[in-house]
């Protein structure tokens, strides 16, 4: 898949990327993803649930993640999300795009 132009809504784009990253380790439910992102960012990032669930829906609709209802360790029913092969590829591409974006931003911001 060719790298897409970065979206104007940078935050939304990065949240999608973060979710993909979080899921690349193992399948997780929504709350678990939020916890994992907090943990990975050392509590610097608190993911608003208002953006988390729409983002999950969006990614699922794109075909990057897949969902399945199953039981948690405590025996509760929860919806687990997992990366699809397309999602794995997208993670690689989006990560590259992100690095490129950061480099450009750095160049511009340092030039002044």
């Amino acid at each position, binding site marked *: 898949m060719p790298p897409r132009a970065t979206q104007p809504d940078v935050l939304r784009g990065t949240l999608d990327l973060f979710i993909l990253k979080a899921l690349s380790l193992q399948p997780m439910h929504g*709350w678990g993803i939020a916890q994992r992102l907090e943990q990975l960012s050392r509590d610097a990032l608190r993911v608003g*649930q*208002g953006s988390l669930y729409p983002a999950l829906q969006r990614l699922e609709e794109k*075909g990057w993640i897949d969902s399945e209802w199953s039981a948690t360790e405590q025996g509760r029913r929860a*919806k687990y999300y997992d990366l699809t092969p397309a999602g794995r590829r997208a993670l690689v591409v989006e990560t590259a795009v992100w690095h490129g974006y950061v480099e450009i931003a750095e160049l511009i911001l340092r030039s002044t």
Partner: protein
Amino acid sequence: MKYMVKRWRKRLRALVHTDAVDRELDEELAFHIDMETDKYIRDGFHPDEARRKARVAFGAIRKHKAETRDARRMSWLPGVSLDLRLGARMLRKYPGLTLVGGLAMAFGIWIGAVTFELVGLVVHPTLPLPGGDRIVQIRLWDAESNDTEPRALHDYVIWQEALRSVTDLGAFQNVSRNVVADDGEARPASAAEITASAFRIATTAPLMGRTLVESDEQPGAAPVAVLGYDLWHRRFDARPDIIGRSIRIGDGYATVVGVMPKGFAFPVAHELWMPFRTAMANQSPREGPAITVFGRLAPGVSIDAAQTEVASLGKREANELPATHAHLLPQVKPYAKLFMEPRPQDMWLMLSIPLFAAMLLGLVCSNVALLLFARAATRETEIIVRSALGASRGRIIAQLFAEALVLGGVAAVVGLVAAGVTLDRWGHQYLAINYAMLPYWYDPHLSVATVLYAVALTAFGAAIAGVLPGLKVTNGLGSRLRNGTAGAGLRFGGVWTAVIIAQVAVTAAFPAVAFIEQRELWRAEAYDVGFRAEQYLGVLVEMDAVSGSDVSGQKDTAAHGARYAATLEEMRRRLEAEPGVSGVTFVDRLPRMPHHYRSVEVEDASGIAQSSGVAASSRLGDSLTEVSAAMIDPNYFDVLERPLLAGRAFNNADATSDAHVVIVDEVFVMQVLHGRSAIGQRIRFVAPTGPKADAPVAPGPWYQVVGVAKDLGITSLTHRNRDRGIYLPADLASTGPMYMTVHVKGDPMALVPRVRAVASTVDSSLRLSEFQRVNEVQSEVLWFLSLWIRITLLLTAIALLLSLAGIYAVMSFTVARRTREIGIRVALGASARRMVASIFRRPLTQVSIGVVIGSALAALLLVVTTGGGVSVSGALMMLGYAAVILGVCLLACVVPTWRALRVEPMEALRAE
């Protein structure tokens, strides 16, 4: 792939089971809050406080839900629905294009659906019975004559004993029997003498009473009958107390034991069932009545396995009875395909019809594509802007596809409704004309498969009409965007030119087809039978064979013939006594019907006519004359009020076999005798020379010509040239079923009830059918022709409409593109005439080429079908029509040209 299927399933589920999906979302969010609450409790908060904090942290649940739901749907559905809404808006915005394009596509889908349904019926008929696809027929195939051998009683008995792979083996024989209703009137019913196993196979419960059972077939059993639903309604007023009543069938009585439900007409198209009581024991091979054997494949047995078993039985028979069975191959065939099996060589033809329909739709849609392309081109700015805003090429093509799909969807609904009406109103009639006894499962109506096919056709059409223009209009969009040269890249290329030329050619050629059909219709309508046929009633009179379980032998046939002849004479006597009847006669074929063809040879008349080519060559026996022969009653010409032109009519003695006299008609005299006097000439019948006719064929005795008749409709309505006719005296006792012709004052059809009543009193086993005015014989041929003419004219109109719309679209497009150029040229002083010529040149060339090709095609068609030159008036008509087409097409150019000439130079220059 796995995920894609899953994703679409989820999308579909989100559409259909909205509630369930919403509940899942609720559950997911509740789980999140619970987990959050648990976390706060672990951090030491009181459960109530923990829950409150979790809720606060989560925020407005309802809002999140709404957003999540939006995320679920936004990404694809609104995109599609937006495209579809846009498409619908386009339909309203361009009503002309909607009408023309929609009509054209609807027409294509209509043709496609109707042909698909009919071809499907023939190629893949299904028996509307439970497990109908496992019901088979076993038939004897005579490899020598390449035909079925229906006298299969001997083999039926063997199969019944030995076959394991086919169960419930049964047989039936078609009989036609008069059924006498309560009012005493006898009318024929289509009956089957059938084994009881048929009702086990059909697994259809009777509406009332019982079906036939094995004990009914025993020699001493009381005669019983089962009625069909329609027969019960039509003839017995649906009386509920019919069961147990004795009714008169043919010349016997039978007790009604059951009534079958509506729509049941097994085995073919029957409405009356009687036990199969033919004696089966010791039946000689290849003798006895014509029967059809059927059965059900045993559970788990394939038709091939059954075929293998039957074939091995056949081989055994061939060894034991080489005289009769050497060339007989028993075959197992699906029952539903039995009666209308297309020959293998016709199969490709059958299958090519839907292909042809698809091609027709493809052609139509490539025209619609032309129109959509022109429209897309005028919307180029919009498309470029959308592309600049980030719409991908695929997205834009998808939008154009959606627009075409909306148009196609509307067209599909119109086309399918039209197809449904067509099939319901004419489908059955169409099939019935082509087949003598139409099996009841050939019931054309809009089936699910046909609707699906139409949907596929629509998608295919929309792909052509939407994607092609989309590809073309988005091609090189980026470079156009960069160069800022909107429109420069869009051209109507060679493909479109070819489409327009083909279109015009078809439009120009179609009327020739319509004309050929119309000419046939005129010819058939103008057919002159040579007498006042509208005053005559024709009716086929048949009589049931003497009933009984014996296979009728020679003696029975003679007795039956004598009885038949006596009954006809009695009918004649009584009918002639009726008021308004001035004569009754009998003939084996009514005028306008196809007659028996015979080959005759004329005796070389006393050496004088040696110079005559016919006489000389007939001696060589290599130029036999084909004639149409009719068997007539002696008073035939009197009743028709057309006395002989020369000689005498037949008398009652002529019918005896050694008289050998014949009457010829004037066409025969003209064509065969070249106008010489016919009386006293002698002719004889010769077997037509077949492929194996090297050996001299023994000709029959000489017949003396005793009279010359007028040409009295001995030619079939479908024949273009008049047949040479001869008349032979009919022996009512041996000729076979005769048509009774009654000369009536007033409307002949008004006499029908009286004829029926008289027949019932004379002999209730007389079966009367095919009541018709003699001038309307074979009028279904006319119906068929006029149907084709209407279809052809419709095709022509659609083709013309499409051509006009196409030319108009191209012209508008060209003028719009050249606005600036035209403005500049006008500003520089170009004359209006020059401008018009420059604009007109291209369409004029295209239309002219199309008209020339089309006219050439039409001329070729006319020459081929007439087998000769085209008359001057015909040629003038064609030229005139070509001129009209040219004129009408150019008319389509007027509006755009006028628009172009009104271009203000300044405006045009500012336009960039």
